[in-house]
């Protein structure tokens, strides 16, 4: 169990340094959390500073690759990988990789843009 816990800060650092490398600019991952929700979803969430929505367009493949890699290392098989933005702004404030429960597969996984503040980077809910 301790091994798993120490993987969390390791992966926070890995996510941060990987993004910095391909973007070539400072980015800050304040916190990486592994979560379980009441509805039955589980996943990981990274709170971040320094990215904007245009970065998601330019580096989408790279974001999906690193988030998938980290998810796998944490034992997660995400159905959905998405970014959360501040509504009405260009700021990206979090990445989530999430294994969806049946209800959320329907609510989040079955639309191209299930909520105005979410940008879906990878959707594997139907595969």
């Amino acid at each position: 169990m301790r091994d798993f816990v120490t993987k969390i800060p390791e992966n926070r650092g890995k996510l941060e340094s990987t993004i910095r490398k391909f973007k070539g600019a400072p980015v800050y991952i304040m916190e990486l959390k592994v979560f379980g929700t009441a509805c039955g979803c589980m996943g990981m969430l990274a709170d971040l500073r320094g990215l904007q929505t245009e970065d998601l367009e330019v580096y989408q493949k790279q974001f999906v690759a690193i988030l998938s890699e980290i998810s796998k290392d944490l034992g997660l098989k995400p159905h959905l990988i998405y970014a959360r933005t501040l509504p009405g702004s260009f700021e990206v404030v979090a990445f989530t990789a999430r294994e969806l429960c049946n209800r959320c597969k329907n609510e989040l996984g079955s639309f191209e843009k299930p909520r105005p503040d979410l940008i879906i980077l990878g959707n594997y809910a139907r595969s």
Partner: protein
Amino acid sequence: MKLVIPHPGHFLALKEICKEATGDAYEIYMAGTPEVLGSGRITLHAPMLDEIVTQTEYLHDRKLKIGIVMNPSCMGGQHLTLQGYNTFRWYFGKLNDIGVDSVTVAEPYLIEMLRKEFPDIKVVVSTISHVDSPERARFYLELGADAITLDSNINRNFDILEAIKDVADCELRLLVNEACLYKCPFRYSHFNLFSHMTALGNKPNIFSDYYYEKCMSFRVRYPELVIKSPWIRPEDLGAYEALGIDCFKMSGRANTIRWIIDCMKAYSNRSYDGNLMDLLDCPSELRDMFYIPNKELEGAIKQWMGCKKFCHRCGFCKATAERVIRVYEFKDQQRNTLPLKEVRTKCATL
């Protein structure tokens, strides 16, 4: 030198701060009661009147002064209603009876009201009143201010500081470690937001603190903004004392007790050998992102004393950022730092 120390508001914090209070500690300040008035900053514990009584006695026993900060930038006109007037008058009367030494407000009407109705209370103008010129300082003196906390945007504008000192025959306070963005475009809006969020009543159900999140993201993208922001290093207090300004206010009442005590000691010692980010209030979230060796900023004050504030022509702060800022990297369970330029290979600058 007189240090004005922040206090989160709960008695335990006050006892701890007092236990380690340095000889320069002059006044300890906290927010007032939100039932009456909001505040310009996050308030984690708003003391009720009986707590203010206890804490005032405790501080006075230790020969320290107590300040109550009630500095929302917006009250929605409530203060100009009879009901508002009666409420504020009642509350200020209570503070007066308790023996509170000073009240800091941002609203001009409250300054005049305090002066007229409670002449024993020291009336302090908040930094949120944006006193950034001799003319504005004179307006507030005319309203009855006893002390003025200057707009932190002029912390590095020595000509203006000197000119204000010429006209203002009162205590001038400088906010040393607030470290908001220089000429922050969010400043007024953010203070207005806090004003409403910290007051009781109909609070807007916001989805996020846009101004804060945008501010942090700006600094991550353009780290030179951290250098440009008008903090004052503990080592540089003497440059201000030479102008005749010797009252230094620390920001940070929403921080932990330990953080407040360590900051107080750094400013009291007039020296800090460590990460400058440890001392800065607003961008403290980024202290695990940037490492800025404070001692490597020795001498920068000389540039800032003559700074014309035309950043696009000067480039001193940007060059300083490139020279001193290091970025934390976490690898193999170790935290190391990299020079900023190694991280920033493609990033534009502001």
